[in-house]
C-alpha cells in the first residue's frame, strides 16, 4: 500500500507538470497578451515596458522555466488585468467554490442515493415513478434555464428565497439544486441499476433466507456492494462541481473559480489561467487518488500492490 501511495504521488506530480506545460504553451499560442491589453494609442515604449515586466522578451522555454520555478515557491505571477497576485486571486475564490460544490454534492447524495435505492427496492411502485420522473426532469432541464425558472418562482413570485450571491443557508438552496439536479438524476439511475443487479444476486437471496431484516439487507449488504460505480461517479461529480460550475455561478452571481477561469481565458490573463488550471488538475488528481483508496475501503476484495 505504501509503495502504491508513493507511486501515485509521483504520477500526480508528473501529470501536474505536464498539465502546466500544455496550458502554458496553449496560453501563449493564443497570442501575446499585450495584443489584448494595449489600446489604440499604445506606443512602442509601452509595448517594450510591458514585455519586460511580463518577461515576454525571453524565449518561451525560459518563460516557462521561470514561471515553474516561481510556481514551486507559491508565486503564480500577477494578474494582467488587476495586478493582483494570481495565487491570492485563486485562493480567494476557493471558499465560494467549495461551498457551492459541497452543497450541491450533498444534494446529490441526499436525493440521488435514497431515491435510487427506493426505486430499486420498490420497483414499479409510486417511489419508482417519482424517482424516475425526478431523473428524467433532471436530465432534460438545462441548468441555465432551471436556475432562472427557480429564481422566477421562488424569489420573484413567492419571495421565499434570495435571488443569488453568497449569504445564509437560504442562499445555497437554489444554486445547489440547479447544479445538483442533473447530477442527482445520474446518481439515482446508477444506484437504481446497481441495486437491482445486486438485489438479484445469490448472496442477497441467501441473506434474506437466513432471516436478516429486509432493510438491513438493502442498506448494509446490497448497497455497499452496489456502491462501486456510484462512488466513481460521485468522485467525478465532485471534481466537476469544483471546476465546471460557471453557468450556475453566473446565474446566481456566485464568485467562484469557474467564472474566474472563464474570465481569465477570455482576457488571456495567463497567470490566473495557468494557476487555475494547476488548481483544477491538482483537485482532479487528488479526488481520483482518494477514490482509489475508497475502492479498497468499500470493497475489501480490491487491494493494491
Amino acid at each position, binding site marked *: 500500500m505504501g509503495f502504491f501511495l508513493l507511486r501515485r504521488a509521483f504520477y500526480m506530480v508528473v501529470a501536474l507538470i505536464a498539465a502546466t506545460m500544455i496550458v502554458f504553451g*496553449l496560453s501563449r499560442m493564443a497570442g501575446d497578451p499585450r495584443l489584448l491589453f494595449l489600446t489604440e494609442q499604445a506606443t512602442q515604449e509601452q509595448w517594450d515596458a510591458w514585455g519586460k515586466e511580463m518577461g515576454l522578451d525571453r524565449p518561451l522555454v525560459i518563460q516557462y522555466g521561470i514561471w515553474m520555478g516561481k510556481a514551486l515557491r507559491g508565486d503564480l505571477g500577477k494578474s494582467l488585468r488587476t495586478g493582483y497576485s494570481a495565487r491570492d486571486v485563486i485562493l480567494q475564490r476557493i471558499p465560494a467554490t467549495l461551498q457551492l460544490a459541497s452543497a450541491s454534492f450533498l444534494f446529490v447524495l441526499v436525493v440521488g442515493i435514497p431515491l435510487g435505492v427506493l426505486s430499486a427496492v420498490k420497483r414499479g411502485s409510486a417511489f419508482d415513478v417519482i424517482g424516475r420522473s425526478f431523473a428524467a426532469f433532471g436530465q432534460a432541464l438545462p441548468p441555465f434555464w432551471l436556475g432562472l425558472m427557480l429564481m422566477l418562482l421562488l424569489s420573484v413570485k413567492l419571495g421565499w428565497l434570495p435571488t443569488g450571491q453568497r449569504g445564509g443557508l437560504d442562499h445555497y438552496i437554489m444554486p445547489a439544486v440547479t447544479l445538483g439536479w442533473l447530477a442527482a438524476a445520474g446518481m439515482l439511475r446508477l444506484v437504481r441499476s446497481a441495486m437491482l443487479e445486486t438485489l438479484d444476486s445469490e448472496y442477497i437471496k441467501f441473506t434474506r433466507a437466513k432471516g436478516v431484516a429486509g432493510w438491513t439487507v438493502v442498506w448494509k449488504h446490497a448497497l455497499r456492494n452496489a456502491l462501486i460505480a456510484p462512488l466513481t461517479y460521485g468522485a467525478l461529480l465532485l471534481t466537476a462541481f469544483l471546476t465546471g460550475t460557471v453557468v450556475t455561478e453566473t446565474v446566481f452571481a456566485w464568485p467562484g473559480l469557474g467564472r474566474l477561469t472563464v474570465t481569465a481565458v477570455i482576457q488571456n490573463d495567463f497567470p490566473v489561467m495557468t494557476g487555475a488550471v494547476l488548481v483544477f488538475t491538482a483537485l482532479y488528481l487528488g479526488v481520483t487518488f482518494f477514490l482509489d483508496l475508497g475502492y479498497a475501503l468499500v470493497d475489501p476484495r480490491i487491494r493494491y500492490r
Partner: protein
Amino acid sequence: MSTRSFWARLASSGLLVGVLIAAIACGEKEVVVTQVVEKSVEKVIQQTVVVEKEKIVEKQVEKVVQQTVVVEKPVEKVVQQTVVVEKEKIVEKLVVATPTPGTAARPGKQPEGTLTVAMSDVGTPLFLNRAATWPLNLYHTGFGLTETLAKAKGQGEEPMLAEGWTMAADQSKVTFKIRKGVTFAGKDRNWGEMTAEDVVWSFNDAGAENAGSKHDQADVIGLTYLPWKVVDQYTVEAPFKQFQGSWLAQTIIEAGGGANIVSKKVFAEKGDAALTTMVGTGPFVAEKWSPDERLVAIARTDHWRILPDYRRLVVMEAPETLTRVAMMRTGEAIIAEVPLKEAPGLKNLGYVPDDRVGVATGQNVYFAGNYWSKKDPRTGASVTRSGFKPDASHPWIGDPDDPARMESARKVRLAMSMAIDRKTINDTILAGLGGVVYIGQISAQNPEWKDKWKIDYDPAGAKALLAEAGYPGGFSFKFFIPPDLGSVDPEVGKAIASFWQQIGLKPQLETTSYSARRPSMVAREIDIPWLMQGSDRGAPVGGPTCPFCFPQPGWNGGYEAQEFYDFWKASSEQVMGSPANLATRDQFYDYMFKWQLQIGTVEIPKLFVYDGRRVASWQLERNTQSAINGLDSVVLK
C-alpha cells in the same frame, strides 16, 4: 497501478485541459457652482466671433507677433493665427468656478439606510493608478470611493479636487490649484490632507512618468504630458509633451477615464500593497470589496463636498441580466444596470429607466482590410499590411493606387450601407428605444450631426450600385460578429446580415471570441467586415478625431489612411468645441461619409433602472465610458 493507468491519468489531465481550451474557442443635493468668471469667458467668445471680421483680425495678428509667434506665413494664413489667439484668450481666462460643498441628505438628517445596486461587474479594488485597467478604473469614482480633479457636468466640466486651473499662454503647461481641506480616508484611519504631492504621484504613476502603466488612459496621458511637478503644497504643474485640445475630457475628468487621485502616503507606507489598500477622498469609504461579489461602503460624514443621504452602499455583482432584473423585482436592488430590452417590462412594473448617463453605443460595421497608408504617419517609415488585399475576394477593399478599384470598393461599401433598414432593426430588436446611426464616429442624435451624412434605406439603389461596382450577382464574404463583447449585440449583426442577403450578398457569420480575433487587429491582418461599437451620442461636442490614426503597436479596427492622422493632429491641437475644431470635425465626417469605411446601423442606449418608489432623486451625469456615477447624490424616500 500500472504505466497504463499513468497514461490514462495523464490523458485525463489532458482532457481536462482540452475541455478548458475548447471553452476558450468558444436634487436636493446640489452642487452650487459659483460662476465667478463666466462673464469673462463669454466676452472672450464674443471676441472670438468678431475676430472673423478683417479689422479685428489685423489687431489680433499684431498681438501675436508681439508675443511669441513669428509670423512668416503668407497673408492667407492669418485665419490660422487668429485661431491661436482664440485659444490663448480662452485659456488664459479659464479659471474655473468653485463648487460650493453641498449635501445630499435632507436638512437635519444624518445618513441612514442602505442603497443596494446590482451591476454586471462590481470591479476590483485598484488603488494604484498603474494597475487601473479599463473598465475597472471607472468603478472607484463611480461608487464614490475616489475623486478626480474635475468631473463632467452637462456638456462641460466642473472642478472637483482642483479648485481651478490656468493654461499657459503658449499652451506648454496647465497649472492646477488643488483644493484645501480634502482628506484621504480608509476603513480604519484617516490618511491626512490631500496635497499637490498626491496629485503629482497619481498622474505620474498613471502614465505621465510610467511607461509600464496599465491605466486605461496611460497611452493618452503618456502622449499628452511630461512628468507632473509640485509647485507648492496646493499647486501642481502639468507640462504638455504634446498639447491635446481634449486634455481635460480625456485625462482629467472621471467621465473620460481620468486618473483617480490616490494617496502617495499610502504607497510610501504600504508599497505595492497600496493597490488593495482602500483609501480615497470620495464620500464613501470601502468597508469590504470582494471582486466578482460585492462592495460594501460606508458614507463619510466629514466629506468636503457632500453628505450622502444613506449610510451604507452595497453594490452586488450579478453578471446575468435576468438575475439583475429579478433583484430589482424582489427589492434586493434599488438601482440596477439593465439592458435596453428589459426596460419596457420594468417600466410597466413601475421602475424608472434612466439614460442620463448619455451613452448610446453604436453598432457599426468596420470594413477591415482598407489599409491605405503606405507609411507610418509619425515616423514616415514604410509599412506593409498583410490584411491589405484589394482583390476579387475582397470587393470592399479599395486601393489608393488604383482609382477605379478605389471607386468600385467605395460603391460596394455604400451599397452595403444603403441595404440596411436601420429603423426596422431599431423597432424590432431594440423595441424602438434605440436610435439610428449612419456613419462611423458620429451618432445621428449627436449635436454635431448634420443630415448631409444620412443614408436612406434603398435596397434597389444598393443593388444598382453593386452592379455598377461589378458585382451584379453579389459576392460571398465572412462577417465577424463578436459574440462576447458586451458592447456588441449579435442580434443586430444577424439582422444586418439578413438585409445584405436581400440584395444578393452572401455573408457567412463568423462568431469567434473577440479576444481570439483582437491580435489580428493589432497586427493589421483582419480583412473582413465586422461589427463593433462605434459612434456615441453621449460624446461631448468637439474634440479630436481618431479612427485608427495611430501606428502599431496600437489597436486598429481594420482601416488606415494618412488623412486620419492628419485630421487627428489638426483637431487635437484645437480647443475642444471651438469653431475651428468643429470645422475640422465637419470635414472629417464628410470624409467618413464619402468613403464609408465604418458604417453605422443602430445605437443602444445605456440604461440604469431605479425603483421610483424608493428613490426620490438621483443626479446621474453624462459619462462617455457609460459608467454608473452620482450614487452619492441618491436621496432615498
